């Protein structure tokens, strides 16, 4: 008796959750579907769901019109470059704060977090000016540096919370056995820290990939990543739904896939360890 009730409840839960889940996912699904339609089918009334002539033509047109590959490469270079650079700078800092904490460690961590709170628009012109002076406007290097600095606090924090979970006794044991600082980091800490570093890498690539304030304001043609590529579809091209959809699908597909792997880390990374 009790068993059939729970089965029934489970069925109701399933239906409700799937309905809500599909509703929330629908705009993405619709975009992907529309990208395989012709322009006429895309604006058909009533809307066409699955029964239309699937075509890949839009993808070819989008690539031809605006050289998707160049924007994709910029996105990969900027998101990947800024994250890797950030991690290289953050690892030693997070390591020392997790294993050699001092009285000021907490203050330093909180101060780092506070730099993340600075509204970007408040320093837009200074950065713009510095970029012009250094000839970094519309360059990948410039964006890599800015996005690295934007995400450095999150990277340090995430690594810190992961490193904190590595038992210090193991490091002491290694030290007793005569391992120097270098060996300690290379052979003891790194293997244990790899999962945390990987999570940090993943989440920050996603954040940098989707960053749309600095990438829109500091690039023009040369270094523009996918965020700017899509913004160029604002109008009038935005009214060609099939092509807009193809462009959108190409811009979000890589990160949707990465994102699905990083659900768990998302919570930890974005709440700075306040919710685990």
């Amino acid at each position, binding site marked *: 008796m009790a068993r059939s009730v729970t089965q029934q*409840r*489970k069925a109701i*839960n399933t239906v409700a*959750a*799937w309905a*809500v*889940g*599909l509703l929330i*996912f629908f*705009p*993405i699904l*619709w*975009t992907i579907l529309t990208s395989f339609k012709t322009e006429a089918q895309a*604006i058909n*009334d009533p*809307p066409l769901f699955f029964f239309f002539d699937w075509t890949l033509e839009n993808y070819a047109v989008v690539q031809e019109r605006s050289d998707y590959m160049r924007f994709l490469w910029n996105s990969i270079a900027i998101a990947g470059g800024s994250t890797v650079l950030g991690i290289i700078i*953050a690892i*030693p*800092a997070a390591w*020392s704060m997790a*294993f*050699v904490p*001092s009285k000021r460690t*907490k203050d*330093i961590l*909180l101060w*780092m*977090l506070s730099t*993340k*709170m600075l*509204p970007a*628009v*408040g*320093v837009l*012109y*200074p*950065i713009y000016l510095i970029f012009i002076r250094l000839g970094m406007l519309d360059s990948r290097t410039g964006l890599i540096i800015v996005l690295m*600095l934007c995400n*450095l606090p999150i990277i*340090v924090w995430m690594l810190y919370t992961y490193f904190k979970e590595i038992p210090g006794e193991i490091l002491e044991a290694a030290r007793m056995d005569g391992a120097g*600082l270098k060996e300690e980091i290379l052979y003891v800490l790194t293997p244990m820290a790899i999962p945390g570093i990987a999570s940090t890498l993943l989440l920050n690539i*996603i954040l940098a990939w*989707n960053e749309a*304030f600095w990438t*829109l*304001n500091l690039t023009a043609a040369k270094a523009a990543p996918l*965020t*700017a590529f*899509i*913004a160029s579809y*604002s109008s009038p091209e*935005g*009214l060609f739904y099939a092509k807009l959809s193809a462009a959108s699908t190409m*811009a979000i597909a890589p*990160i*949707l896939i990465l994102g699905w792997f990083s659900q768990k880390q998302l919570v930890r990374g*974005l*709440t700075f360890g*306040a*919710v685990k």
Partner: protein
Amino acid sequence: MATQHSRSAARIMMAPAVILLLGWMLVPLTMTLLFSFKKYLPLRGGDLGWVGFDNYIRFVSSSAFWPSVQATLVIVGGVLAITVIFGVLLALLLDQPMWGQGIVRILVIAPFFVMPTVSALVWKNMFMDPVNGLFAHLWKAFGAEPISWLSEASMQSIILIVSWQWLPFATLILLTAIQSLDSEQLEAAEMDGASPLARFGYIILPHLGRAITVVVLIQTIFLLSIFAEIFVTTGGSFGTRTLTFLIFQRVLESQNVGLGSAGGVYAIILANIVAAFLMRIVGKNLDA
């Protein structure tokens, strides 16, 4: 415990990150602060000297200021209300036993990974367009006159788009918090005859308090500075010009750097007030 040697090593290892962030914070901030006290028009004469608090007064007394504060508050407040309320409900639902939980989770989280320019454009054109948008089709199917969403209901539209982007974040954090709740406590309450509503009100909601606070504070920081969603949809017209967008227009569009910088200082102060609360919570967590 730590030796003198490892302490100085630690300091050296911390140095690059600290120095970089210090520079990233202080250099632009100092420049913004300097510009805000100057009449500075890069395209019309450049640096025209010190003007005291002139920019600060002019920024606040311009006719665009209060509407922009209002727009900012409405958007932040609206999105927070929607994401927290639906986030709690959705988290409760996802916590129940069901088939295909993993897949539903993925479906719900997906919008968070969509870049802001994409979600704004897809919503604007494919859903909210008054002629060919899906909403227009839907409205016509029910015999209603289609609405041109982004001009007639601009604020609601922006709030809908941004809520869609942030609902996954709220849900995910609240779900994580619910899953950390001791299930024995709930079972005990159930055995003692507590109704589902009572269990929610007296056990689950208090347990979620902290997570809700974190969601509200973190989202507020991000929402105060939303940019792309407005940039590609309304471009700041139809009453959707937020404080961030107003400053952007002053600085880059009308190239009035002094005035925009004063606005920037206001935005920084506002963000710091919110940040102070967040820091207190995160700081407490560090001690624990």
